[in-house]
């Protein structure tokens, strides 16, 4: 009696004006409209939200943790991208 799985949706909520949407969890729903309502009913019961996004979980493409070294290590040595790399005499003041 296994029934058809209902699609999974990832839920993102903007909690305050000016903030970005943040991932909060997921819901099941047959379609996007119902997913949005489910997200509202499940994740904003205590005034947590001003705006909701729902995204089909299957639509997310994620980086592979096995590629972590290749993907993220090379930037560690590029210290010249950070302001502290450069010397400015104190007399010049804040820059």
């Amino acid at each position: 009696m296994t029934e058809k799985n209902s699609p999974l949706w990832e839920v993102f909520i903007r909690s305050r004006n000016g903030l970005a949407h943040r991932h909060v969890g997921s819901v099941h729903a047959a379609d996007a409209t119902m997913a949005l309502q489910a997200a509202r009913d499940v994740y904003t019961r205590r005034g947590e939200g001003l705006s909701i996004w729902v995204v089909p979980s299957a639509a997310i493409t994620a980086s592979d943790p096995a590629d972590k070294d290749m993907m993220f290590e090379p930037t560690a040595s590029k210290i010249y991208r950070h302001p502290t790399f450069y010397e400015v005499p104190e007399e010049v003041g804040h820059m």
Partner: protein
Amino acid sequence: MYTQALNTRDQAAPSADSEQDARFQARVDAELKIEPNDWMPEAYRRTLTRQISQHAHSEIVGMLPEGNWITRAPTLKRKAALLAKVQDEGGHGLYLYSAAETLGTSREEMVDQLLSGKAKYSSIFNYPTLTWADIGIIGWLVDGAAIMNQIPLCRCSYGPYARAMIRICKEESFHQRQGYEIMLALCRGTPEQKQMAQEALNRWWWPVLMMFGPSDKDSQHTDTTTRWKIKRFTNDELRQKFVDATVPQGHYLGLTFPDPALRLNEKTGHWDYGEIDWSEFKRVIAGDGPCNRQRMKQRRAAHENGAWVREAALAYAEKRKARERAAYAEAAE
């Protein structure tokens, strides 16, 4: 606790040592979180899936004994609070199913496991709620015991589980207070109400202590789950913490605990308590508690009676997609 059945069932053996295993363990030891796509030992995945889904099932089945009293709550304030609380439990079940799904098992599969009797849930929800005082007791003691267990789970090594627990703990802080307030009103009320409160405590005290699972000397599980930083305290440690916190609260209410051996140990500073009847625990876990069959029957009925609704929602979604495709094709011509 909500996953106490784990303690009595087959234990995940640590996988054979390998470089991957060692790297995994090093991450866990460094208190780094394991995320869904990270490599993890199969046994870790299996244990967590089982633990999280049992925890979710407990929340869902736990809606039933309290749900009994939503329509009968004695004031509108109590009614609203209880409705919100039972609703929260549904929400917590949902967060937990979501966390478990990240390990690769669908909610439908987990629900099937519950309804077929393959998956377990906390023994405590197989006890009946007979009077309004039981609602107070569940909030004060059952949620109190749950919180003892859940706070350390907020630091669990598996990211999605830890994050779900943080959300749950935040929401649950009102549950225990709600229950204690009910008890307080009863204990300050008429002699009949006070008696109702005492009688409920007498019935629930031992089953609540059983929620923490078998005594440490009888449970072998702890090694692996502790090493994996899924579990951070032993059953007996958590049970003792709970007893120490709860007994003074009960005395404040003017209630007595149904345990003649309960006394403050001057040397250790802890409350000593009597021997738990583990045969009852095993019996209830095995399916012969007062309400096991009734609870499962209700869950199955809800699931079966809802099948046509879920089908309709999916059928509509398919139709809409087909219509959109057709409209798009027409526009393209």
